[in-house]
């Protein structure tokens, strides 16, 4: 049933045990005393904004921070109060996943867990300042399986300072050995001005040439294991290995297909029709506003139809399925399109009504997008 509202809900849980050097998400370290108040505020915000949601949600996604660092009673209370959805994902750090937590999540209606493994090399985990060790990841997966989770995703990071090509292959082997339904592989982004870049920037610059083919290695290894490379950084088990289930992240597909979504919590972003807003990242201000029954402070960005069309191009080209060009004429640069076709980076299919990137085009996705955008 489609009653016109947003069918995707994002909930931000910012609390973490420790802020990792490379992280640029909105996070709050410690503050266990605030967890209950924060969950109250989330539910208040949902009450205020719930009107934009459809009556039947497709997905709910709890991201962080470390959602599973949130005090368990508060987390469970939140999950039970959220509207039901076909896919309910919770992000988790391996060291937080106990047998008890796994069962509690499952009981509270969670269908999918995304585990931030990042690497299986202890020395690389130390570089990333991760708390968990390789065995924590394996233990977490076993606890989740024991609790009947049949949709587990692992996050990996590559391009870590000091990571050799064989380190990368070993990480991929270790991840695949756990037979996750889904795998996200991100190149480490050293954002300028972060503590991490300050420490490792020179080392990364020195390694840049050597790491140039890591992305290609990731794709080759993971697709070689029967996974589908369905989005730039995301893989899922192919249908033949998934008993016919579509294991793509339905929540994230919502973003990539340009659907509307509501985001609640600090720093969360919402996109509804011609508006996008970002909540204040400051937890104090957020709690204060909602305690008083007011919406939190927000940065509002009006979105014209042209902007949403350009975003559909930008996001749609990340997927393996062709992008329908219907209604996108004004967002596209005809010369650029001819050029990327000539260079063998993209081709039009389906009677030229859709556009799909070739494998090399997908590796150069941003450059191709820049070329294609009007």
């Amino acid at each position, binding site marked *: 049933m489609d009653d016109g509202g947003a069918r995707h809900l*994002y909930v931000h849980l910012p609390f973490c045990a420790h802020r990792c050097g490379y992280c640029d998400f909105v996070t709050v370290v410690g503050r266990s005393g605030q967890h209950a108040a924060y969950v109250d505020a989330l539910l208040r915000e949902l009450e205020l904004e719930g009107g934009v949601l459809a009556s039947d949600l497709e997905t709910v996604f709890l991201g962080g921070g470390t959602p599973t660092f949130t005090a368990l009673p508060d987390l469970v209370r939140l999950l039970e109060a959220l509207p039901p959805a076909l896919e309910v994902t919770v992000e988790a750090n391996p060291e937080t996943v106990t047998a008890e937590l796994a069962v509690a999540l499952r009981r509270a209606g969670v269908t999918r867990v995304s585990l931030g493994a990042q690497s299986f090399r202890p020395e690389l985990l130390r570089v990333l300042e991760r708390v968990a060790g390789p065995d924590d990841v394996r233990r977490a997966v076993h606890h989740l399986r024991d609790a009947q989770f049949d949709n587990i995703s692992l996050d990996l990071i590559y391009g870590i300072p000091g990571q050799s090509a064989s380190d990368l292959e070993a990480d991929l082997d270790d991840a695949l050995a756990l037979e996750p339904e889904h795998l996200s*592989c*991100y*190149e480490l*982004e050293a954002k300028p001005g972060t503590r991490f870049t300050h420490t490792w920037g020179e080392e990364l610059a020195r390694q840049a040439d050597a790491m*140039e*083919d890591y*992305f*290609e290695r990731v794709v080759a290894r993971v697709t070689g294991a029967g996974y589908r490379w369905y989005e*730039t*950084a995301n893989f899922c088990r192919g249908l033949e290995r998934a008993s016919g289930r579509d294991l793509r992240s339905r929540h*994230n597909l919502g*973003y*990539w297909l340009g659907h509307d*979504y509501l*985001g609640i919590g600090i*720093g*969360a*972003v919402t*996109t509804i029709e011609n508006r*996008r807003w*970002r909540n204040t990242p400051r937890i104090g201000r957020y709690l204060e506003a909602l305690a008083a029954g007011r919406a939190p402070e927000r940065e509002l*960005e009006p979105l014209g139809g042209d*902007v949403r069309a*350009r*975003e559909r191009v*930008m*996001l749609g080209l*990340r997927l393996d399925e062709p992008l329908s060009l219907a209604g996108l004429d004004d967002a596209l640069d005809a010369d650029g399109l001819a*050029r*990327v076709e000539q*260079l063998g*980076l993209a081709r039009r299919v389906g009677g030229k009504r859709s556009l799909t990137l070739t494998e090399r085009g*997908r*590796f*150069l*996705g*941003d*450059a*191709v*997008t*820049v*070329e294609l*955008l009007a």
Partner: protein
Amino acid sequence: MDQSRIRNFSIIAHIDHGKSTLADRILELTDAVSARDMRAQVLDSMELERERGITIKAQAVRVSWKGYELNLIDTPGHVDFTYEVSRSLQACEGALLVVDAAQGIEAQTLANAYLATENGLEIVPVVNKIDLPAADPDGAAMEVADLLGDDPAKVVRISAKTGENVADILDAIVERVPAPSGESDAPPRALVFDSSYDQYRGVVAFLRVVDGSFSRRETLVAMAAETRFEAEELGFFSPTMTPVESLSAGEVGYVVTGLKDVSRLRVGDTITSVARPAAEPLPGYKDVKPMVFAGLFPTDSDTYPELRDALERLKLNDGALFYEPETSQALGFGFRCGFLGLLHMEIVRERLEREFDLDLLVTAPNVAYRVLERNAEWLEVHNPAEFPREVDEVEEPFVRASIIVPKEYVGAVMELCNERRGTFDHMEYLSPERVHLTYELPLGEIVLDYYDQLKSRTRGYASFDYDLAGFKAGNLVRVDVLVANEPVDALSLIIHRDFAYERGRLLVDKLREEIPRQMFDVPIQAAIGSRVIARETVKARRKDVIAKCYGGDISRKRKLLENQKKGKKRMKQVGMVEVPQEAFLAVLNIGQQGKS
């Protein structure tokens, strides 16, 4: 004024040897300007001249001294303006040769002293800056006296700064410089030794009347250019413009012409009257031709009209400046400009940037070449992009270079001159310490960074001057730079075959560093005709995509890509390759630094 009471003289001095200060003192001493009112260094009127310590445009000032009328004619102080200097000198009967007591004679002083002697001028040697602690007035006086074959006792020793002995100079001028000796009753003839442009009154020409006399409102004609005009005003500088009814034989002054184009009344031309024309012009007129060329492009193509207007306005004041529109595929719309020499080019560029607030990209300078193409006709080429790829013969301009250095640097200077295809001509000791070297050098080797190299290899001690010695055959080739098999016009250059490989390699290496990696391999080549002499490849990018893109990242990422798109639109397109303008800039920059 009776010609016997007139003395016309110039000051010859190296930059920094005190010409302007001396001129100021003379004006003060003769009450032409009161010290209180005087803006320091009255003669150098342009802002740029004052800052660079050089004089671009000559002016003439009339002063009185003990019943005599003295005309001080200022000369431009640099090698590029030799012809203008020679015209200024021709307007005089005498010259002060000023030498710094601490520095001694410099190459430029020498060149101008020779020029003055050739023009038959009486030279009054002066040693300046005797107040300096490092001064060696006797040594400097000895050098000057040797040069002129004079008695060291006749060298006037002064300090222009303190004014010490400056009056002696004025007395020496009256005593030693001959009075003018034109024919007062003959048909009028005057030499144009400089001109400037006034936006309300048109061209103002500076004159030395040789024969006869000129009256206000008279119709005059410039004999070489055949330009007619009315003498709207006649006068002299004192140092402000002072109108008079007439100017007669021996006098120096100005005429306001109302002409709107400075090129119609060129330096060196002879003015006579239409009513009573002279039969022969004064000797020595030359049509000066630009010898150094470069492309000037606005860094922001929107400012092209401003550049065009600015060049038009500069041209009003600078008859030697040449320009024509040029279109480069790499740099867009601009102008190919011709200059007398490198300094002239620098001055024009600085004035464009400073007075007209323009941001310019200047291609590596080249000289004028004469080319014989397949036994057809000789043609003159000013732009490497127009240089035929196959030629039968090529000629390039040569200069006679004169270099003065302390003796310990002779080896370094010889090495530099040899590297630059120089032919040794002559060497002599000016003093036990200082050596005068002459070489014949291709002008094309000098326009790169010869002067900077000379200065750096001699720790700044060398002084340098040159004059053109005509065209000679040269083993020159055109080197093209190709990006993805497309020649980049702005980077083509003409170079001696022996240096082609080295320079081609340098350009290719630099471009490989500067051109961002594209979505495909980009070969970069340097080639002579169809023969590739250097090659590099900018390897294709293998990945260019941000890994993470979820709900919270979309706006930031979209803006990032939109900005990249805008950046792309600013890039220069060479075939399929996008090259940032900065890349060309960096490459042109090494072009100008030469073979370092």
